[in-house]
């Protein structure tokens, strides 16, 4: 398994053997197909993070994330949501299918 990117709380790995991605969420390691990884990206981007700073809209600042066709459920706080967003953003650039973050070649 190759490490793609590690943010503060999360690490994404790619496994060439089973052609899957793995995210280490700290308390558990979750396996993703490419499609599921894309879906994770869409879900985390759809979070309205501004609501986390408005106690009327998101009282406790938590986000429920249901992943991999309802196989996994995560409860993330504001910091974790922001960190996961960043991890996803960098990872997709490193995977070569996004230039949201311009990467200098090493």
């Amino acid at each position, binding site marked *: 398994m190759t490490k793609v990117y590690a943010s503060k709380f999360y690490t994404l790995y790619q496994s*060439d053997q089973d*052609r899957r991605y793995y995210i280490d969420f700290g308390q558990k390691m979750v396996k993703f197909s490419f499609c599921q990884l894309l*879906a994770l*990206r869409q879900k985390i*981007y759809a979070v309205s993070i501004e609501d986390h700073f408005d106690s009327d809209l998101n009282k406790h600042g938590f986000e429920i994330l249901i992943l991999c066709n309802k196989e996994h459920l995560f409860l993330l706080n504001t910091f974790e949501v922001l960190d996961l967003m960043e991890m996803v953003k960098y990872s997709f650039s490193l995977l070569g*299918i*996004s*230039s949201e973050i311009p990467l200098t070649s090493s």
Partner: protein
Amino acid sequence: MKDIARQRMSIKVSTMDLLNDQIKMESHASASYLAMASWCEQNAFVQSAEFFYHQATEEREHMMKIFKFIADCGGNSLSPTVDNINHDFSNLEEVFETALDQEIEVTKSIYKILSVAKKEQDYLTENFLQWFIKEQLEEEKTFRDILDLFELMGRDGIALKFIDERIKTA
């Protein structure tokens, strides 16, 4: 490390996001044309109603074209939600003017995706959008021609009847 992401998907994620937004826009256009058809029905503009039913179907086809393109490229197409459909118009001319404005917004949006696709060197999306650019040119022209009829024939009751009779469904 194998390039699994690229093997699975042949467009860039940023263009995929914009194409998903475009799906929403086409679907909104379709629903909006239905609202216009409804207004024309209520006001006895029979030809115009037919015309807008046809437009609504076309917009849905545009939506499906993009939906399938994303899927064919290995991306995730998102089924759109539609809200904020306006049903209120003060007259027939306003209906067509709103339609033209809507088409112009779609054209702008297509151009925006095109410029991102170019920047990202996403040639597949760039090529896919060519059809839409041509389509938008035709759509804008259709509505502009209809709006010219109001200049030409006037806006009183009988003129409006004549205009409605001249509205052809392609």
